[in-house]
């Protein structure tokens, strides 16, 4: 089973990477995650982020992830400690 963490996007590092302030961790995750993780997006399902990765840039990513509540399905942690994963929005509206 894939490890999953949730939290709010903060600093954007590049057109495809950012810092996630982790607020929730899936019960049963195989690995530990700190309260702040650098994430490289390997695939995304985020409102406002173009489907084509070649169209991503820092400015667009800022509008999509900063403060937003995000779900990250972790693929792996690379040798520098950065997580690679699928990043998506989380939740839907109600009343």
């Amino acid at each position, binding site marked *: 089973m894939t490890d999953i963490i*949730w939290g*709010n996007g903060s600093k954007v590092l590049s057109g495809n990477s950012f810092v996630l*302030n982790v*607020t*929730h961790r899936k019960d049963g995750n195989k690995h530990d995650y700190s309260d702040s993780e650098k994430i490289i997006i390997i695939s995304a*399902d*985020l*409102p*406002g982020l173009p489907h084509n990765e070649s169209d991503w840039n820092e400015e667009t990513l800022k*509008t*999509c992830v900063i*403060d*937003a*509540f995000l*779900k990250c399905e972790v693929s792996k942690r690379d040798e520098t400690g950065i997580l690679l994963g699928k990043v998506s*929005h*989380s*939740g*839907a*509206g*109600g*009343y």
Partner: protein
Amino acid sequence: MWEIVEINRLQVDGISLQSILSGKIPAIVIRNFYDEKSCQTIINRIKNHSQNNFQNGKLRHIGPFLMSHTTDKKKYFEDAKQSQRIFERIFCGIKNPIIQICDGINNMLPDYAISLASEFQNDYSPAIIRIHENGKSIPIHKDNVRFEGKEYALSGIDHQISCVLHLQESESGGDLVMYDKQWKKEDEKFRNIDFGYSSNVIESSESCKMSNFSAGDLVIMNPNYYHKVTKITGDTTRITLGMFLGFYQKDSKIVTWA
């Protein structure tokens, strides 16, 4: 005191929606807005209609909801098209409640033109019928298409208002609680995983509880204020028809969607 305003249909003309947008009042309830007999006709037709699952089966609904298609416009517009046909069948031969709500809003704001939202010849969903069963509740949340619907042209509206027509009430519960606090982006740190927000987000905020709804009552509120629906109890399902109004102030235009 932060209290709802209760009126009847004949008092609609004198009501200002500005008081809702500004948060001066939490909501307006128009009692007997839609006739009870037509509510029952709609309920009977809904019972014969197949219902989709929503939120892992926790809720059921008829018609798509934009917020559950934030990154899948194609599917939303396909479902919206289909929903128009379903609503035509459900409202056949009776006064269409969606039109009645639009007419009511037009009476409050005669200088505004009101129409169903559309984008590149695609109509948005006109409404959503929600069917809530025993034990269900809706946690603290807000609805804000400007933030959540970034991929839709509709996200360019100036203001959003929510209209909820009660079609059938449960034996108890299903109360609407509104909090005197507007959502802001920094509040996203209080989000729950699946949906809604931790109660910490409304800590020390004044609240207002609305209960004793009857079939035909219409609730008008600013959905950017935090709100929730208490647990529904009893064998009778709580059924509502919901739609949003989006205001383009410069163009004096209102668009509707769900």
